C-alpha cells in the first residue's frame, strides 16, 4: 500500500464519518457540518491525485479545490441562514421536526 492509497483511504474514512454524521445526528447544524466534512474529504482526493500526477504547470486540481472551498463556503452561509430561518419557524433545530412536507 503506497502513500497514494493511504491518502485515498483516509479521505474515504473521513467521507464516511461525515456521511454517518449527517445520517445519524438529530441536530441540523451538525448535519451541515457533516456535509462540510464530506466536501473537505473530497478536496483531499483532488489534492492527492493532482500531486500524484504532477505535470509541471498544470494546476487544475489545485484550482478545483479552490473553487470547491468557495462553493462550500457559499453553501455553509446559505445553509446556516436556512437553519436559522427554519429554527424561527419551528422553534427547533432538530431535523426530524421539519416534516410539514410529508406525504
Amino acid at each position, binding site marked *: 500500500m503506497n502513500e497514494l492509497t493511504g491518502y485515498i483511504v483516509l479521505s474515504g474514512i473521513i467521507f464516511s464519518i461525515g*456521511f454517518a454524521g*449527517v*445520517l*445519524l445526528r438529530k441536530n441540523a447544524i451538525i*448535519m451541515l457540518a457533516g456535509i462540510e466534512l464530506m466536501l473537505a474529504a473530497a478536496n483531499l482526493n483532488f489534492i492527492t491525485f493532482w500531486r500524484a500526477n504532477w505535470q509541471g504547470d498544470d494546476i487544475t486540481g489545485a484550482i478545483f479545490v479552490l473553487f470547491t472551498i468557495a462553493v462550500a463556503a457559499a453553501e455553509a452561509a446559505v445553509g446556516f441562514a436556512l437553519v436559522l430561518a427554519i429554527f424561527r419557524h419551528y422553534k427547533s433545530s432538530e*431535523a*426530524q421536526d*421539519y*416534516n*410539514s*412536507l*410529508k*406525504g
Partner: protein
Amino acid sequence: MGWITKIFWLTAILPIVAAGLISVLNKSKKKTAAAVAITSLSCSCLISIISLIKVIELKTTKSSAIFITNFDWLNFSGLKVQFGFILDPLSSSVAVVVSVVGLLIFIYSVGYMASDWNFTRFFCFMSLFTGAMLGLIISNSILMLFIFWELVGLTSYLLIGFWFNKPSAAAAAKKAFITTRVGDLAFFIGILILFATTKKLLLYDNGDGCLEATSLKLVCNLAIFGGLFAGTVISILIFIGAMGKSGQVPLHIWLPDAMEGPTPVSALIHAATMVAAGVYLVARMEPLLTLVPSGTSGISVASMVITYTGAITALIAALIAIAQFDIKRILAYSTISQLGFMMMGFGAGGMAVAIFHLITHAFFKALLFLGAGSVIHGCQGEQDIRFLGGLKKYMPITFAVYAIGMMALAGVPLFSGFWSKDDILHSVSLWSVSKIPFYIGVVASFLTAFYMTRQVFYVFMGSYRYNKDSASHSSEHFPHESPAVMIYPMIILAIFAFGLGFIGCPFLPLIQKFLAYTEIEHKPDFFIMTLSSAISISGILAGWFLYGLKPVKSSQHPDILELKAKPFFNVLNKKLYFDEFYEATVIKLTGLFSELCLWIEIHIWDGLVQLFSRSVVLFAWLGRVWDEYVINLGFDTGCNGLRGVGQGISLWRNGKVHRYISVIGIAIIVLVLWVVWLAG
C-alpha cells in the same frame, strides 16, 4: 458651417428627447424637468439660429439655399416611403421664431406654473409640443409632415386639457381635437390623392419631389372628379387641413375654447406652434396652391378660396372680439382675425407676406398672452375684464409691455405689426380679382385697433373692480407684479414686438427677398401706409372715446356698446351663434344618426347575435352531456386508480430527513457497485 446642415434635424429631435426624459422623471423633480426642457430647447434654438445664418449667407452669395436630407423609412417592393429634412429660408426662419418664442414661454412657465402639482408633466407636454412643431417645420416629406402635424394636434389636446379635472377644460380639449380632426381628414385625403397621382411623398428631391416642376405639371393637367383638376382638389383639401389648425371660419370654434389651458399653453398655441402650423403648411405648399392649369394664366382657384376665407375670418373674428369679456378670449379672437389676415396675405401676395406677418405676430401675440397670464397670475385667476381694472398702478411693467404688444397688434406706425399688416394690405390692394378683401381688411384692422384699446382700458385704466362674490377676494387683496422669471421673457418679447418689423419694412424688404422664390418688386406705397396708420389711430381713438373718456366704474355696469346697440352687441357676445349653429346642425345630425344606429343595433343586429348565441348554448349543452356521461366516466376511473397508487407511495415519504438521506446513501452504494461491476 457646412456641418449645420447635417445636424439641422436635431432642432426638432432634442425637445422630443427631452420630453421623453421628463416623462420618466419623478413628479417632485420640478427643477430638473424645467432645466431639461429649457436646455434642450436652447440647444435647438442655437442650432436653428446657426442654420438661419448659414442660409442667409448662402442666399446672399448664391441664389439657391435649399438643403435636403432624404432617407427611406419603409421600403416595400416597388413602393418606397421616404422621409426627409429640409433646410431652406422658409423652414429656417420659422424654426428660429418657434424656438425663440417657445424658449421665452418655457422660461415664463417656470414662474407661472411654479405651484402646479403636475409641473413635470406640463414641461413634458410643452417640450413634445414644441418638438412636434419644429419637426413639422423641417419635414421634407408630406407624410412626415402629417405625422408631426398630428403630434401637434395630440399635444395641443393634452395641453388644453391639462387641468383635466375641470370639466370645461376637458370639453375644450375634446372640441379642439375633434374640430381639427375635420381639417386633418381633408388634409389626409389630399395627401392620398397627391400620392396617388404623383407616387411621391417628398416635397423636394432634386427635381423629383412633388412640389417640383415635373410633378406639378402632372398634377395640374390631370382631371379628376369630372372637370376638376387634381391640383385644385388637392390644394383645397390641404387648405381645409390648414383651416382646421389655423382656426379659419368655420373651423375656428375650438380656438377660443382652447383658452381653458394654462396661459403659457395659450401663448404657445397662438404664437408659435399650433396655429402657425396651418399658415406654415400653406406657405410650404405654395408651389402647389398657386398652381394654375397649364395653358391658362391668372390666379389659381385655391388662392382665391384662401383669400376670401382669410378675409371673412379676419372680419368675423374681429367683430366677435369687440363684445367679449374674457381677457384671453379677446386675444383668441384677435389671433383668429390675424390668421385671417395671414391667409388673405398669402392668397393675394404670396408666401413671404404671410410668413412675415406670422413672424411678427408670433412675437407680439406671445407677448400679449404672457401679459394676460401675468395679469391673471397677479389677480388670483380672475379672467373677466369687468372685474379687473386699474392695474396700471399695481403692475407697471406688465402694463408697459402689454401696451407695446397692443400697439403692435393694433398696427400703430413703426411697431412690427404695422409693417407686416401694411405689407398684407398693400398686396391685397393690388389683387387683380377683386377689391372686396381689401375693404374687409381695412375694416378688420380698424376693429382690431378698437377692441384692443377697449381691452387695455378695461384692464389697466380706471379703478380696480374686484369680484365681490368670488371667495378668493374675501380678504384684503390687491394685485401684485409677477416675479422676474416671468417679467424678463416679456421684456425680451416686447423688444422684438417693437423692433422686428424693420426687417420687412417696404424701404428695406429683407425678409420678403429672403423668403420669396422669385424676385418681387417692392416699392413703398405711401398711400397704403398713410391709410393703415390712419385706420389704426382712428380705431384707438374710437376706443378711447368710448372707454377711455368715462372709465368703467363698476363691474355691474353694462358695456357702453351694449347700451348703444344692444341687439348687435348681444349677437357678437354670443360669438355670432357659431356654437349654437353647430349644436343645431352637425351635432344634432350626428345624434340622430347615432339614434338610428342604436335602433338598428337593437332590432336587427342584436336579434342575429341572440340567435347565434342561443345556438352556441345549445351546442355547448350537447357537448356537456357527452363530456359528463361518456368521457368523465372513464377518466374518473383512471384517476381513482392513480390516487390509490399515490397514497401507497406517499407512505414512504414520511417527512423524516434522515430516512431520505439513508435512501440516498443506499442508492449511492448500489450505483457504485453497479458501475464497478460493469467496468470490472
